[in-house]
């Protein structure tokens, strides 16, 4: 990931350097074990030759606190595609990888993921200026205030509604995001299976090592060659562990964008929400205008209870009507203000969101291209190792 220059990053360096196990009582007073991660920040000044870097400020945080931060960002910046966190539970694992959250490899990859998350936020032109984010990095106490804010606003996001006139670009974006989500999930699943199989191929070759060794014991001239070739087969079988570990890094890079699709989808929905609000406000205004017209002309166009009751129980007095008309006028004026507001809000949302979406698209293309390059590099390294080992074995065979 390329870190973009922001004011924040010009000021400070951010790292997540360590992970530790802790034990404590949780909210329901039960003993639990969890992992905390060390966030280090230090001023981003260049260190003179031979000098020591400044001592960093540090604080420990656990995964759930990162989640809280992210949720806060989600509700505070609805038009921004918020960077995702590393996965909560290990998914898309191939058999050798542990799915245990306390497994050291998982913890390590999560540490890297959390650092990546912080850096992404810190490189964002808008998010990097957020005060709460700054406090997250530097002060231990996360206000409970934030918690309350977050809770209530989240609820509105999950409501179901239908929008009549969504912006076509957002519709297309949502579709793309869904497609991307599907294809990356598929990719990660198949990759895990491929890794599993490749592991099998390499490991079985290790059996050659043993049998060549046993065979060499009954041979005279062939013995040495066979024995050494056997060692190379062992090396070959062992080499797969490192190769697959390197590949995990690629999987993580791709996974980040899988989670990004959720963030994109979320922005699309927020657009729909603001669009919906606008449509509701406009609808409400139209209804009020309708009512006013009816009242003014006496013609009932739309069925209403008031209309019916007045028909049944007699007309109201002129005075009453005037009062009602005035109230309606007021309401209409307020309604028009609301619609204007909502319209402006909507347009502002579309504008700012689309700016961030363009930025995101560029970032995505760049990051994924780099990820593909690094994947190819891993493959090449695997081929080179393979050639090396088999060439060595071949030499041993030719000396048999």
């Amino acid at each position: 990931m390329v870190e973009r220059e922001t004011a924040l990053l010009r000021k400070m360096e951010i790292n997540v350097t360590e992970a530790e196990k802790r034990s404590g009582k949780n909210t329901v007073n039960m003993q639990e074990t969890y992992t905390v991660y060390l966030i280090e920040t230090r001023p981003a000044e260049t260190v003179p030759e031979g000098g020591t870097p400044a001592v960093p400020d540090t604080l420990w945080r656990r995964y759930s606190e990162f989640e809280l931060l992210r949720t806060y960002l989600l509700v505070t910046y609805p038009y921004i595609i918020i960077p995702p966190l590393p996965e909560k539970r290990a998914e898309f694992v191939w058999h050798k990888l542990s799915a245990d959250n306390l497994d050291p490899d998982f913890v390590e990859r999560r540490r890297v993921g959390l650092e990546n998350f912080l850096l992404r936020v810190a490189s964002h032109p808008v998010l990097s200026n957020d005060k709460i984010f700054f406090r997250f990095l530097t002060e231990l106490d996360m206000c409970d205030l934030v918690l309350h804010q977050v809770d209530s606003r989240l609820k509105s996001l999950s409501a179901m509604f239908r929008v009549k006139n969504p912006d076509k670009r957002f519709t297309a974006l949502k579709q793309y995001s869904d497609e991307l989500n599907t294809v990356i999930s598929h990719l990660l699943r198949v990759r895990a299976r491929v890794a599993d199989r490749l592991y099998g191929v390499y490991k079985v070759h290790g059996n050659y090592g043993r049998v060549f060794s046993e065979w060499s014991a009954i041979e005279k001239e062939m013995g040495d060659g066979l024995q050494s070739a056997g060692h190379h087969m062992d090396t070959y079988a062992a080499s797969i562990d490192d190769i697959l570990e390197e590949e995990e890094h690629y999987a993580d890079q791709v996974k980040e964008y899988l989670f990004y699709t959720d963030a994109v989808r979320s922005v699309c929905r927020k657009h729909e929400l603001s669009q919906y609000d606008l449509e509701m406000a406009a609808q409400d205004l139209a209804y009020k205008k309708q009512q006013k017209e009816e009242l003014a002309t006496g013609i009932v166009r739309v069925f209403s209870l008031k209309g019916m009751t007045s028909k049944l129980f007699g007309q109201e007095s002129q005075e009453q009507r005037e009062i009602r008309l005035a109230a309606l006028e007021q309401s209409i004026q307020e309604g028009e203000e609301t619609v204007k507001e909502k319209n402006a809000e909507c347009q502002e949302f579309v504008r700012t969101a689309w700016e961030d979406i363009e930025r995101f698209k560029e970032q995505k293309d760049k990051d994924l291209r780099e990820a593909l390059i690094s994947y190819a590099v891993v493959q090449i390294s695997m081929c080179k190792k393979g050639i090396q080992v088999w060439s060595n074995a071949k030499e041993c065979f030719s000396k048999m």
Partner: protein
Amino acid sequence: MSVGAPRGLASSGQKPIAEILHPLSATEELLSPGPDVTVTIGGDKEAGLTNGTPVEMSSPASASSLFNRLQLDDDLEADARDPYSSTETRDLFVTVDDPKKHVSTMETYITYRVSTKTTRIEFDLPEYCVRRRYQDFDWLRIKLEDSQPTHLIPPLPEKFVMKGVVDRFSEEFVETRMKALDKFLKRVADHPVLSFNPHLNVFLTAKDLNKRQGLALLSKVGESVRHVAGGYKLRTRPAEFCAMGEYLDTFSQKLGTIDRIAQRILKEQSEYLTELREYGTVYSSWAGSEEELRRPLEGVAGCVTTCSGALEDLSENMSQDFLPVLREYVLYIESMKNVLRKRDQTQAEYEGRLEAAILRKQDDRTPMPAEVEKCQDKAECFNADLKADWDRWQSNKRQDFKQLLTGMADKNINYYDKCQAAWESLITLLQDKQTEDKTSETN
């Protein structure tokens, strides 16, 4: 991609350099062979006398294969302890090629062309060309076993194949079998004793192999030691023959293990290949939703496809060339153990008769009964033949396995070479685009 033209396998034993081929040589993709090249390297006039057509026998002109052959030749000269061998007296060349299917109302079967070139006086003509089927090879082998029981007879490929499981007429099966038959015949033709066997002569020359001819010849050849009187128990087996038996047992066991490992690898590779193919298609389908990333993703899909193809080649090679040779040796070992058993019986018979004669003897000056002396001769000849053949066999075995395993390594190197090339060209493609973007940004 399987090997196109049928080739003869290297024969175990002294051979001019031109005729030694790696069964798993990575050179089949190379340029068409040049017979001239083989003559230059071998320096042996008779290297030009390739059996059959040049396509089967000539060597591809690659630097690495030339180097390999040179190495092989050096080793052979170093190992020329074989008392029977001498390149100057090479005068019988045989080849098995050109499989053809014959369909008749009764059955369908394959015949192979057996070509012979020779200067031996035992043969009426200098060249022969006949067609033989597996049954005929089997007949020859049985005849050789019966008439030369003191010698190690090379094995044939397996006779029976499960009709439902293996396609007896598939290209791969026929080619594998043909290579094994060629190897069998070459080993027999190279053997200093077996090659003069009249049954071989008939096999190579008769237009129609009337298998009943064999019976008449049998009586001419002489007494067979097949019918050794039973009931003789062996006292002590000489140490060297014990060692042979033990060696064969262990070796056979190890070969069995290697066979199982190779099969397991093939299975894992096949499953890996299945997943890999799906993996490639996912990248293709992803490319469909992208703009900027379309070409890179399609590039990755292409690489994965190339690697899949390369893996397929590797697996096919292992199953077609590696495994059959391995299995052939297991059969060879079985027939050798049989010969050892016969040797034991011969020795037992001699010892038994000797003991009986000693008990019956009147006084020390009576000479040994003729039949006991005959038995002693038989036993001693058997031991001598066996020892000579054993040394020869060990030497051939070493060459065969060196070639087999080197070939296996070569195939794997080849596979990784192809994959590496594919990924490297992808990186070039991806990085070019990057610099393209950078320059357009700065403009």
